[in-house]
């Protein structure tokens, strides 16, 4: 791993601005999906009562519109999730190249194969490989990895948690009809839960709440 910040000796922590932008974008996208879900649920509730036989006549159209709205948001969420991965591993300058390369690879694959799903799959596979490297290096105690927490267990937990999200997205995007769907769903579940548990129970901030009144 010649490109890790430690080996190049040029490590500059990933900018707080970039980190914050990714976090805020994730929050905004999840908020958008959440709002869509809420509005969709309320509409279903209303239509179920107000429109006779809505389940037979109106439901397919409702699903179509909901999918149309959610599609771009979900794609954006996957892209942002992928961009969160290399920030642990690479210095600021290399990070820009790696992130751009990942995006170009995903878009290029999508254009060549004329399939958004294939482009996303390739993008997620690359993200998963980088995240596996992050987890392995974290477990090995390698220096130069950029984490907010200083606690090693929390770092490992964070790494596993992000890997779980990527595997989960991979299952939804590419493996729904595959025999790997079930085992990988379980792997994603264990990574998400195990990673969360490590993060929660290692984080020292959990012992420092100070309400201001």
């Amino acid at each position, binding site marked *: 791993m010649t490109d890790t910040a430690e080996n190049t000796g040029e490590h500059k922590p990933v900018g707080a601005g970039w980190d914050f932008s990714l976090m805020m974008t994730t929050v905004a996208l999840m908020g958008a999906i*959440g709002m869509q*879900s*809420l509005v969709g649920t309320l509409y279903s509730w209303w239509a179920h009562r107000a429109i006779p036989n809505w389940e037979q006549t109106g439901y397919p159209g409702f*699903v179509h519109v909901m999918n149309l709205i959610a599609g771009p948001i979900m794609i954006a969420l996957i892209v942002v999730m992928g961009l969160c991965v290399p920030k642990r591993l690479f210095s600021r300058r290399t990070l820009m190249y790696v992130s751009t390369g990942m995006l170009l690879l995903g878009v290029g694959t999508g254009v060549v194969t004329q399939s958004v799903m294939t482009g996303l799959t390739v993008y997620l596979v690359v993200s998963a490989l980088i995240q596996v490297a992050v987890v392995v290096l974290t477990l090995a105690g390698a220096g130069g990895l950029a984490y907010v927490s200083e606690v090693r267990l929390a770092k490992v937990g964070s790494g596993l948690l992000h890997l779980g999200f990527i595997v989960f997205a991979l299952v939804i995007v590419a493996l729904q009809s595959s025999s790997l769907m079930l085992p990988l*769903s379980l792997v994603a579940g264990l990574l998400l839960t195990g990673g*969360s548990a490590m993060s929660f129970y290692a984080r020292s901030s959990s012992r420092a709440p100070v309400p201001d009144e």
Partner: protein
Amino acid sequence: MPTPDTIVLSLESLRTTLSSLGPVLDAAILVACAAAMATVVIPAFKPYLKWTLGALLGVLSAGELVLIWFHVRLWQVCQVIDPSTGHATGGYAVPIWIESEKLYVWALMLAVIALTAKRHGDELRPMLTVGAVLLAVGSVFLGHPFTNPLPDFLAQYGQYLSAMRSADLNVAYQAFRSAESSRVYYYNAWYMWAHPPLLFFSYGAFVASFAATILMIRHRRSSYEQTAYRWARLGYLPLTLGMVVGLPWAIIAWSGEAWWWSGKVDMSLMMWVLYTAYLHSRIYLRRRGMWRVVAVLAILSFIALVLTYVTTYVVPGAHSVA
């Protein structure tokens, strides 16, 4: 070798036995609920809260043992028989937390949490006891787990038995395929034994977290916030695992359906997102005024939990009975 006729007789005997125990158990539960509420409401009785709560837990546990016995007997009695061979393909392993038994299991779980809560246990216990009592009373008057057990399952199985007893082999075969499908892919599916209990446990922990949040808002003490957080993170883990485990189930069982726009699924996702936001917002808890944001998120998360349950019954969709 069981036949539809012998199964009908065994099933009737089983239901009669459970129904005869039902009024006794219902009365015992209601008495225990009244005693527990008295120790919550009347200050002079407050020292006895743990005892009355223990009694409620004891009665609920006794009832649960009866229900477990009922389910084991159902598994032995309710066989699915292939009409073309006459051989039984297996029994129904009906989970102990569906239909009429859902509220009962929640009441039992909340009673366990109320009794075993250590941190701020004395302050949390009255609120959790009220929650357990409400669920137990709801179970007695709405669920009827003893006097009207598993109405949907038994109605469905009754239809299968009727078809098997008819002279028409085509009707019997169609009923067999339907019964075998529901046995294998629903009642006996491992998801059914993993997905709901994980979520139920998380809901129980979130109720405790909500109670501690109320205490925090009322008393403005950070230690209550700590307690709320501890319960919430404990609930978040089975919530996440339970939801992810539900994914393959949904993909397999609802193949071809837009299950992801079911109101229940959407509200569950919203609940997960809100609890995620709540747990992460605590990182910034030292900032001035941030505890208010945390409190609001905790309340919203719990409202989403309640709506998730309600949505099942009022909004149509794959994961719904509306």
